[in-house]
Every structure is written in structure tokens, then in C-alpha cells.
């Protein structure tokens, strides 16, 4: 099963990359871009077949390694 984990900077945490992209886009002439945030996406190929169990495991992976919850939120995406 293919899963995706989205990791984004928490609200209130500085996102220098996002800010730089926003600035660069404006300088390239792309108008009307309000905010830009940059995050990570991690795609995993899991042996699991049960989506519920996969989600539990992914949640644990996020808390233990993939995300730093001091600064990041995460969101797990499983095939519907």
C-alpha cells in the first residue's frame, strides 16, 4: 500500500523557505500570491494491507521520527 505523509511547519513557526519562495515569485512577476509555506512529503510503500493498522503505524512513525512536533504538523494520506 502506498502512503503519503505531509509535514508542514506549525502555524506560528517561521518558514524561511516559504517566505523566500514567495519573495522570488513576486520578483519574477507572479502577482497575487498571498502566503507560501513549504513542507515535506514522504511517500512510503508499505507491506500493510489493512488501512487502519497502516494508519496507526504511520502515526507512530511520524511521532517518533518523521515529524518534529515542536515545529511541525503532520497529515497522513492513505489510498481511499
Amino acid at each position: 500500500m502506498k502512503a503519503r505523509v505531509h509535514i508542514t511547519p506549525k502555524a506560528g513557526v517561521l518558514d524561511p523557505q516559504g517566505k523566500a519562495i514567495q519573495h522570488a515569485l513576486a520578483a519574477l512577476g507572479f502577482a497575487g500570491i498571498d502566503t507560501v509555506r513549504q513542507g515535506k512529503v514522504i511517500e512510503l510503500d508499505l507491506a500493510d494491507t489493512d488501512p487502519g493498522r497502516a494508519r496507526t503505524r504511520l502515526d507512530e512513525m511520524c511521532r517518533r521520527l518523521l515529524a518534529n512536533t515542536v515545529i511541525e504538523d503532520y497529515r497522513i494520506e492513505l489510498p481511499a
Partner: protein
Amino acid sequence: MRAGVIVFPGSNCDRDVAVALGRSMGRPPVMIWHGTSALPDLDLIVLPGGFAYGDYLRPGAIAAHAPIMPAVVAAAHAGVRVLGICNGFQILTEAGLLPGALLRNAGLRFVCRDIHLRVENSYTPFTQLYEDDEVIRIPVAHHDGNYFADNATLAALEDNDQVAFRYCEPGGEVSAAANPNGSLANIAGIFNRDKTILGLMPHPERLADPALGSEDGSRLFDSLVATLS
């Protein structure tokens, strides 16, 4: 003083800090491979600079789970002094031994240069040979040294005198211009509550030798030797 330097795959300042510590101690520290799970009897554990596991995912994130880390955490809780320099600081935050996190530099580029630090608390085993408010010159070399913590954490750090060093002008003024990476409150290094753990982004081991231009960094190691011997 018995000191050990943990070597992770990708550490690259392990030798540098061993040399600087050796100058202060009069003999070299022991080098400890990350893959072992037991520590010898130590008074000081050093997590050196470098790129443990390539800094992939987040700097320090993978190293914080290395086989040796449970022993490091246990020793830290038992009061053994722990010093994390640069990547070592990142590992300490990822391992939960120090609060906050180190984000990508605000300028987004790697920055390697001498900076000035104001000593904020000289009443600790790490800093006792400095004076309060003394300005020292030490190099930084990092891509992710932008210290962040939420407001409550930051307030607690200030209240408990846990800020060790702040980036400052040569005259001691703490200004935005003197901040190389965007760190909150110009924080360059912090202690845990008990002042038994220090994490800092600058590299004291790189200016701990007159041939390299300064010994400002040596006094950090000398302080530890003076306290722990």
C-alpha cells in the same frame, strides 16, 4: 575528568573537538562509536559537529535514535555533563534533552564565519572561566542554526538563566545585524534547567589554538576540566 566523544556516521568535528579537549585535559578523550549501547564511566559526554546521517530528514533527527542514545539520555538524567556542538546541539533538541528546535537559517544559506558571542551565564560548569557579559569570538558553520521555541519555553529559558550565549556585536550589543541565522532572541546556546547540559551552534573547538588565531574557545573546555577534575 573522564570525557567521551560520540562518533556518529557523518560526524566530522569529532577529531577537532577531541584535539581541543585533549589540549585542556592533557590527554585525549575516548571516542565512542554510535553503534554501541553502553557508555564507559564518564564525567562529560560530547556530541560533536558534523552531518550525522547526512542531516537527512532533519538535522539530528536520525542520530537522536542511534543505539548509543538511550545510554546518553540516561547518563544525562543521572547528571553526567553533556555538551552538544552544532550538529550535537541539533541532536540534543531532537532527543528531547534540550527544548526548542533548530530551523533552517533565515538567510537560507550555509554560513561559516567568526561571530561574536555574549556570555549570558558564567555560573555553570561550562562557562565558569568566562565573565558574565564578556564578548568572545568563535566561528559558526551551519545551515540549520535558527533557534526556535514557543513563547512559554522561551520565557522559561530566560527566567531560569538557561541562555548560555547570544550572538552580539563586537561591542556586546545584541542586535539583528549580529544574528547570523535568525535565532529567536539571538540565542546561540542554551542549558537545560540544571545547567548540566549545554547545546550551542558555534564551534569553540575551532578557536582553541593560538596558531588558528584565538583561544576564546579553549576556556569552555578549561571550565569543564576545572569543574570536573
